[in-house]
C-alpha cells in the first residue's frame, strides 16, 4: 500500500493488517543484535579495526620478524592477537550501550526478557569471534605463504586443528570477560576501564606477587585467568591446565557473571 503523508483518514496509523503475533524467535533477536554491533560508526570501526590491525600485523611480521619466525602458527598468532583484545570490547559495549546510550528503553520493551537479550548479544559476539578467527587463520595462511616465499624459507604449517580449536576457545574466554563486565557494570566507561585493569594491570600484579611470594606462585595458575588462558593460546598439554582454566573461569567469569545477570534482571532501565 502507498501511504499518503499525514492525512488523518490514512489507515497506516492503525490498519489491523498486522494483528497476528507469535513469540519472537531467538534467531531473530540474535540477527538484530548482530546488526546493532555494526550499524553505528563506533561499532563498525571497532570491528573493522580487527581486520585492519590483523593485516598490519601480518605485514609487520613479514617485514620485521626473523626468518625462523615465519611459520603459520606465528602468523595466525599475530593476526589473532587484536581479536583477543578487541572482541571482548565489542561484547562489552553491546551490553553497556543499552544503559549508557539508554537504548535499553526501547530494546527491553521489544524483548522484555533481558536474559534473552543478553544471551542474544553473547551469541552475536560469538558469531563475530568465529568469523574473525576464520579471517585470522586465512590471513595467517596467506602471510605464511607470502612471507616464506619472500624470505626464501621453507613453509612451516605448525598449527594443528586441535591447537586451533583451543585458540578459538581462548578467544571465547576473553569474550566472556567482556560479557561479564558488561552485565556487572552496565556502563561503557566503567566497563572499558575495568576491562583494561583486568587484562593489563591484574596480570602484572599477579606475576609480581608470584615472583616474591612462594605460596602465591603455587596458587597463581588456579586464580590468574590470563595466566591460565596462555596455555589455550600456546597449546594445551596437561589435564592440570584444563583444571586451571576451569578454576579461573569459575572465579573470574561464572561467579561475577551470575551476579551481573541478576543485576541486569533487577536494575531499573531509565
Amino acid at each position: 500500500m502507498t501511504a499518503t503523508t499525514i492525512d488523518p483518514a490514512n489507515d497506516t496509523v492503525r490498519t489491523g493488517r498486522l494483528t497476528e503475533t507469535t513469540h519472537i524467535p531467538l534467531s531473530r533477536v540474535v540477527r538484530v543484535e548482530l546488526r546493532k554491533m555494526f550499524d553505528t560508526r563506533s561499532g563498525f570501526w571497532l570491528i573493522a579495526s580487527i581486520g585492519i590491525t590483523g593485516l598490519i600485523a601480518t605485514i609487520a611480521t613479514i617485514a620485521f620478524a626473523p626468518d625462523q619466525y615465519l611459520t603459520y602458527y606465528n602468523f595466525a598468532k599475530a593476526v589473532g592477537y587484536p581479536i583477543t583484545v578487541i572482541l571482548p570490547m565489542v561484547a562489552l559495549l553491546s551490553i553497556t550501550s543499552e544503559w549508557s546510550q539508554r537504548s535499553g528503553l526501547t530494546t527491553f520493551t521489544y524483548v522484555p526478557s533481558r536474559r534473552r537479550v543478553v544471551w542474544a548479544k553473547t551469541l552475536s559476539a560469538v558469531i563475530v569471534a568465529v568469523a574473525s578467527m576464520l579471517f585470522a587463520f586465512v590471513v595467517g595462511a596467506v602471510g605464511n605463504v607470502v612471507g616464506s616465499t619472500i624470505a626464501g624459507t621453507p613453509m612451516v604449517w605448525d598449527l594443528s586443528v586441535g591447537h586451533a580449536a583451543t585458540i578459538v576457545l581462548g578467544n571465547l574466554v576473553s569474550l566472556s570477560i567482556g560479557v561479564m563486565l558488561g552485565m556487572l557494570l552496565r556502563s561503557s566507561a566503567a566497563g572499558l576501564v575495568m576491562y583494561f585493569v583486568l587484562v593489563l594491570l591484574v596480570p602484572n600484579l599477579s606475576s609480581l606477587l608470584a615472583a616474591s611470594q612462594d605460596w602465591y606462585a603455587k596458587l597463581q595458575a588456579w586464580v590468574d585467568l590470563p595466566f591460565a588462558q596462555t596455555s589455550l593460546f600456546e597449546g594445551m598439554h596437561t589435564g592440570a591446565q584444563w583444571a586451571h582454566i576451569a578454576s579461573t573461569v569459575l572465579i573470574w567469569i561464572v561467579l561475577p557473571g551470575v551476579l551481573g545477570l541478576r543485576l541486569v534482571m533487577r536494575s531499573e532501565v531509565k
Partner: protein
Amino acid sequence: MITIDSLTKKYGASTAVDDISFTARNGRVTGFLGPNGAGKSTSMRMMVGLTTPTSGSATISGRRFADLPNPGREVGVMLDASAQHAGRTGREILTIAQQIMGVPASRVAELLELVSLTPIEADRRVGNYSLGMRQRLGIAAALIGDPSVLILDEPANGLDPAGIRWMRDLLRDYADHGGTVLLSSHLLSEVEIIADDIVMIGHGRIVCQGSKTELLQAAGTVVRAADVVALQRALAAAGLVAIVSEDGSIRTEADTVSVGRAAYDGGVMLTELRTADSGGLEEMFLELTADTRRERTAA
C-alpha cells in the same frame, strides 16, 4: 485497554508512586497529567516492565507486559525520544524495530512518511536530530508494529504548535480506530488539546480522574452579556452563584445549560457563553497538586 491496579513503587523510605488505579479505555486518549516528579514516568516504566513495582499490577488487555509474545505488535511504547544510540540513523532505528517485530520492511518507509520525516532526514544520525524530530521518530517506532495500545511519555514535548496539532489528529484517528492511548504530560494545555480522559497525579497519588468533559464542567462556565447587571440579576434569580471578573465576564460553577436558561428566563441577551477553559482546569490542576503538597507537609 490498560488496567492499573494499586500500583506502588517505593524507593527506600520515599514513595514515588502511591497506590494508583485507573483504566485507559479502548477508543479513548487518556492524558496522564501531573507536575514534574509526580510519578508519571515511573508509573509508565512499571507498565512496560522496565521498573519492578513494589506492589500492585499493570496489565494490557488483561496480560502483563512481560507475558506478551511480541510486545511491539501489541503495545507501542515511547518513554524518552532521546533514549537512542546517537550514532544510528533514524531509518536504522525503525529498521531495528521492524526486524525485531517481524513486520514487512515496507513499514519503515510508510511510517517515515506518516511522521513526515523526509528520506534525507531519515538517513541522518539521531544525534543531529532536534527534539521535535526525535519525538516524530519515537512515534513512528511506537506505531511500526501496528499495536492496539500506545504508551507515550511526554510525546508533545519539543513539538511546535503545528506539531502538537498533528499529534492530536494522529492520536485522535488512532483512537477512533479503536486504539487505546495513554500519554503523559506536565502541561495541562497539551492534555486538554489531545486527551478524552484525564488522570491527574501529584506526588505519586491520583488526585482526580474523569473524562475531560466532566472535569471541564466541574471548572464551571464563563458568560458575557452587553448588560452585565441584568445578567447578574438573572443568574441570582436562578440561584446561581456568580463572580464578575475584571474583564466584565462572569464566572459561575454552574454548567452552560443552566446559565443559558437563567439568561433566557431573565430576558438577557448573551454575547458569549462557554465552558471555562484551561484557566479553570489549570486552577484545579495547581490547586489539586498544591493540596497534595500540603497534605504531605502536614503528614
